[in-house]
């Protein structure tokens, strides 16, 4: 099947005075129609930058982003705006991502009208239907964001992203600002919507347990590069990159009886200013070898599981 989204060699560099920050350093991946893919990593790994590049909110420095076969990066102006109908985004902070002066009705009908999908009462009808899909009644239409709870605001944000019937939605930490019991409610809603509407997700999060719940595949990022990717259950059960292992072992498990082996990395994440060739973990990895200082290729482990770690060499075939 042709991938819906194909990212090739994406790079993003920021200039800060004399130094260059390599926020995204050669990221490539594919997302197929109807698939939910998670992108995880800690702060500064570049996952939000990847999202912003795909959504054309930030200018990329290099690479290609093919959506439905068409490269998004050279698009401008009204051509780009027309394409936006097909790929949408849900933002992290529901209080900041809704215009405080727009009622829910206005927030939701704007994309419908902008893309010429419907006007007047037909638009109103669409808006009501969409609101119903996120379990909000029509009573919420005249409400302003400050009259809604966190979970309700985020549901409006989700409705806004789906109302133009996009094929692909980027979700940037959509539940990080929400309370625990609201969080699972919203994630469950996202899963049901995905299944009923057949939309593909790129789900960005630092919270691996929500990714486990929602995503079929997962990609782990560190210092601007993807270090491991594959089916979620497989990667979480058998992480092959040292960073993935450290990440998973650091997550506290809500079970006091569970025995944990913690893999600790030395020190802290280096700043993306001090970029060295080779694996980004070289200064912190307890198993570092000389080969790690040179660019590390992906090794295929079968079943779509691939990892950029020399330690995996012994368990799979090398792939450039």
């Amino acid at each position: 099947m042709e991938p819906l989204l194909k990212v090739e060699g994406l790079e993003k560099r920021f200039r800060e005075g004399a130094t260059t920050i390599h926020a995204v350093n050669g990221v490539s991946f594919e997302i197929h129609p109807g698939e939910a893919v998670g992108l995880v990593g800690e702060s500064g790994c570049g996952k939000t930058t990847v999202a912003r590049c795909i959504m054309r909110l930030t200018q990329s420095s290099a690479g290609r982003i093919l959506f439905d076969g068409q490269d998004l990066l050279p698009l401008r102006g009204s051509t780009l705006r027309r394409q936006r109908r097909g790929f949408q985004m849900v933002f992290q902070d529901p209080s900041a991502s809704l215009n405080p002066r727009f009622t829910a009705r206005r927030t939701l009908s704007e994309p419908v009208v902008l893309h010429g999908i419907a006007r007047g009462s037909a638009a109103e009808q669409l808006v009501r239907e969409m609101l119903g899909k996120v379990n909000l009644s029509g009573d919420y239409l005249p409400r302003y964001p400050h009259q809604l709870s966190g979970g309700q605001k985020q549901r409006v944000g989700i409705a806004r992203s789906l109302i133009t019937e996009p094929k692909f939605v980027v979700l940037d930490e959509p539940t990080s600002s929400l309370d625990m019991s609201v969080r699972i409610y919203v994630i469950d809603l996202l899963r049901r919507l995905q299944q009923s509407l057949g939309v593909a997700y790129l789900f960005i999060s630092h919270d691996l347990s929500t990714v486990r719940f929602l995503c079929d595949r997962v990609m782990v990022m560190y210092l601007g590069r993807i270090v491991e990717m594959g089916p979620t259950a497989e990667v979480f059960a058998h992480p092959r990159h040292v960073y993935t292992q450290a990440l998973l072992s650091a997550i506290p498990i809500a079970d006091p009886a569970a025995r944990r082996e913690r893999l600790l990395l030395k020190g802290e994440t280096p700043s993306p200013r001090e970029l060295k060739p080779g694996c980004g973990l070289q200064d912190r990895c307890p198993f570092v070898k000389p080969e790690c200082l040179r660019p590390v290729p992906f090794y295929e482990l079968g079943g779509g599981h691939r990892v950029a770690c020399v330690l995996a060499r012994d368990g799979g075939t090398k792939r450039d």
Partner: protein
Amino acid sequence: MNAPGAVLDIRDLTLSFATSKGPVTILEGVSLSVGGNEIVGLVGESGSGKTVTALATMGFLPPAARIESGQIDFEGADLLSLDEQSMRAIRGRRIAMVFQSARGALNPLMRIGDQLARVYQIQRAMPQRQAYREAVDMLRRVGIADAERRVRAYPHQISGGMAQRVLLAMMIACSPALLIADEPTTGLDVTIQAQMFDLLKDIQAQTRASVLLITHDLGVVAETCRRIVVMYAGQVMETGDCLSIFAQPRHPYTQHLLSSVMRVDRPVVAPPVGGPPSEALVYAARGCRFAHRCPIAIDVCRREALPRISAGPGHDVMCHRVGEGYGAAAES
């Protein structure tokens, strides 16, 4: 619960806030205790009153707050009856508090070494040079590598994780008997968070201090705390030791909470249905504040004050239904 030998014993604390819509009872009959040499987790979602409880203990309540009843016993004195002068003597020296935003708690204009040294100068009347040496030493103890050099940094030059360590260092500089940590790792990466909690456990083991750890993260509680206090909407729902509560949560709210947790290491069970509570309803209610969402609530739950039912040694459940044998479903 009158807990003999408890370092901190909050008894039946009820406090209200004056709002434009009239007084609202934020905390109702809150009782919890922290014993010597243990870490107790205070768990609840936002709005559960856990931070207000901590602020009441420290004497940091806003002027709109009114203590209706209750006591906070600490080292033989009722903190609520002390004047500002006496509280100042206790704060920092006997009780310390670590807040959520570490960088916000540090003075941006002073180097971190100087800030830490000042704590020693003020609280322990140390001469400047000695205080500075102690500061460097303490920073090393909290795991800041290359302490002699880092000590000259300003708060904006260090990472969030490091700032949190500096704050921790400042708080334990005087070996307080009680350390209150309010969501100390919010916003920090999970690997840094793991380091922080390992550090906290180490420090607690070394100093044998009592720690009240406030958090909404049940994973953190499971790995760090010996006992838990579960709060909802200003009331304590269940208290007990970690192992038994996780294995056999008796209160319907605790069960709900535990079933909402998503875990990395196992596939997921279908989540509970039902949206978040309506706050207007909650704060206006008498009786149990979880009643409006509780699957097994009956009339008496809404009418009468919460009972305290013992479900085992050190395990109390504040639920009318528990006595009858309901709410015993195990969730693991």
